[in-house]
């Protein structure tokens, strides 16, 4: 399940919805990313997260397919927000559902690695008086 949305979400509910679709899920590994209150020693007030939505969907689909080739996965959930997000808000949730812990753990990490590298989102950080595009030369 892939969701790209402005709104906040309830991780418990979102995970339960997927969990209830399946039998024999023993392990769910999740990563939640939040807006931090500072970055590079500058105090952040909020961010604006821009997205290339059609491409984000296709990249997420591709990442999930690759994870399912590498590990025994029952399901995957990616929720990524965009738009104006205050400090401490959730940005992203990635959850991997599987029978065994190792599969869910490693695939969740793998998905996050690729998401960070390939998902077309851009952070514009708002400080006290100015704003700045976050530049990620990795």
């Amino acid at each position: 399940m892939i969701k790209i949305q402005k709104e906040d979400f309830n991780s418990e509910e979102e995970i339960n919805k997927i969990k209830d679709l399946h039998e024999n899920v023993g392990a769910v590994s999740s990563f939640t990313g939040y807006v931090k209150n500072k970055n590079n020693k500058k105090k952040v007030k909020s961010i604006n997260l821009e997205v290339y939505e059609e491409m984000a969907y296709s990249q997420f689909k591709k990442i999930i397919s690759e994870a399912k080739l590498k590990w025994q996965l029952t399901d995957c959930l990616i929720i990524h927000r965009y738009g104006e997000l205050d400090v401490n808000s959730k940005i992203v949730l990635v959850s991997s559902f599987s029978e065994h812990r190792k599969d869910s753990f490693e695939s969740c990490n793998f998905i996050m690695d690729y998401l960070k590298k390939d998902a077309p989102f851009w952070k514009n950080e708002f400080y006290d008086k100015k704003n700045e595009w976050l530049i990620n030369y990795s």
Partner: protein
Amino acid sequence: MKIKYFAWIKDITKYENEEINSEKIKNLDDLKTFIIKKYPDLEKHFDKEILRFAVNQEYIVKNIDLNANDEIAIFPPVSGG
């Protein structure tokens, strides 16, 4: 073809989207040349290989042929998650 600009690239181009149709543009390298001419301030970012290109929502690192109905996106390194 439809060109999309994201993040600080669109602060330079002043457009998020534009339609570019020229018989001279047969592939991605032709498009890059065309865009640098149109937006000289982008040239230094092309030179530093900072920009990313996607054709029909897939990353493209080499030169490829383009068709009139392709969607080409130009953007800086991503910072989601």
